[in-house]
């Protein structure tokens, strides 16, 4: 199939990487990027850290611009897809394509507040408005103890706020397991964060913006500011009725394809893992790596390498720099192969039948590329030439 026009829908790192990869791979037709953002692609990674702390200017988050031979259309939301007539519908009209990259990402999930106004952190505007609110708040309640929630808690402590994190499970347990999870929670407590584990649903209370959360036994945790960090939802509404398989995201095959001429990458894409279960892999690294694989597959079909996520994740909080390779999970017991967990640097490895399937580096200077090599299942990937 000869492709002349490729449309990329999305405005963040997966869309940007897909567009650049198409050019690097020699595609010389037209590339149109439809982004509903108001600004060109920027890095979201510092939004919960240095940008939220105010140590970083927004301009510094902007990524190097797309090339002139990519038509980036900002403020342009895709509202529908016709896979047969090969059109992406927008308010400004329909955009024809031969090949399509779906990279519409995800948005913050919310707990739900009857008056709206729930605070979340996903984009640059959220970060800006949280920072503005933080200027006058003295206490912060973070609902959700995943990577994002704990990073927000860490930054708020750094800013001298009184911080509580509430979750159903001990924060980070589900992602990093009991040993590493407990180590980071200790660091959080040492930094002065209160951690509340409360079974059951959390209900936000307060006026226009939430000012507390009701947990089990009708107890209400109050704060000047409540921030919800309870995961993300894939942006797939514009694809409803398109005929693509949508179930918690856009389902794609091992080459990131939903159709021979339609690929998806990043937070929106659902792919089957080696264990057969289908899931999204919402992370910065995955968005980059999957977008490269998807762009290559769009051009070369099965001559491109099938995609396998590297499962590289990292977080920084409470003075701990955590790098991980391998699927997040609370299974298994790691061995400490270097250093000490009490007094990092430390390197931990999870093994099954003599092979590492997950490694975690804590305040350890190991190069990410080297860390990936410690996990044989995840490092055999192609590079662009």
């Amino acid at each position, binding site marked *: 199939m000869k492709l002349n026009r490729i449309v990329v829908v999305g405005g963040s790192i997966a869309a940007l990487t897909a567009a650049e990869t198409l050019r*690097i791979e020699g595609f010389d037709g037209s590339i149109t990027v439809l982004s509903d953002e108001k600004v060109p692609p920027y890095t979201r990674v510092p939004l919960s850290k240095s940008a939220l702390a105010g140590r970083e200017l927004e301009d510094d988050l902007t990524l190097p611009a797309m*090339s002139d031979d990519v038509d980036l259309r900002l403020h342009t939301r895709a509202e529908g897809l016709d896979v047969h007539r090969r059109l992406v519908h927008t308010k400004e009209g329909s955009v024809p394509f031969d090949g399509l990259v779906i990279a519409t990402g995800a948005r913050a999930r919310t707990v739900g507040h009857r008056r709206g106004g729930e605070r979340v952190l996903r984009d640059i505007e959220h970060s800006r408005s949280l920072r503005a609110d933080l200027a006058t708040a003295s206490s912060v309640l973070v609902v959700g103890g995943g990577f994002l929630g704990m990073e927000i808690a860490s930054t708020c402590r750094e800013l001298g706020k009184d911080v509580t994190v509430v979750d159903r499970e001990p924060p980070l347990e589900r992602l990093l397991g009991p040993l590493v999870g407990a180590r980071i929670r200790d660091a959080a407590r040492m930094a002065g964060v209160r951690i509340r584990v409360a079974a059951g649903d959390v209900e936000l209370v307060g006026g226009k913006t939430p000012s507390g959360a009701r947990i089990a036994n009708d107890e209400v945790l109050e704060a000047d500011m409540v921030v919800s960090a309870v995961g993300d939802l894939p942006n797939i509404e514009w694809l409803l009725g398109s005929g693509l398989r949508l179930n918690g995201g856009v389902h794609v095959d091992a080459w990131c394809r939903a159709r021979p001429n339609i690929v998806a990458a990043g937070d929106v894409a659902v792919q089957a893992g080696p264990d057969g279960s289908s899931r999204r892999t919402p992370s910065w690294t995955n968005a980059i790596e999957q977008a490269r694989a998807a762009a290559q597959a769009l051009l070369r079909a099965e001559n491109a390498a099938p995609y396998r996520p590297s499962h590289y994740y990292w977080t920084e909080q409470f003075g701990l720099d955590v790098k991980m390779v391998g699927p997040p999970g609370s299974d298994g017991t790691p061995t400490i192969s270097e250093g000490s967990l009490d007094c990092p640097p430390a390197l931990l490895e999870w093994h099954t039948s003599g092979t590492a399937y997950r490694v975690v580096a804590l305040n350890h200077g190991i190069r*990410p590329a080297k860390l990936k090599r410690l996990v044989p299942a995840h490092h055999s990937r192609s590079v662009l030439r």
Partner: protein
Amino acid sequence: MRVSADMARCEGHGLCEEVAPSVYELDDDAVVTVAHEKVPPELERLAEAGAQVCPVAALKVIR
């Protein structure tokens, strides 16, 4: 084209090196080094792509 690497920002994630190993290398301390003071024309596109994937925006392309 030149690429400036902000050493203070670099956290050593190595995504630039993964995307464009002919332009970016990580040293033993996982700090990025740019292999060319002036990027050869045939590597410009790769250099750009490597800079764009930096999660902490430590790489700037200068024309």
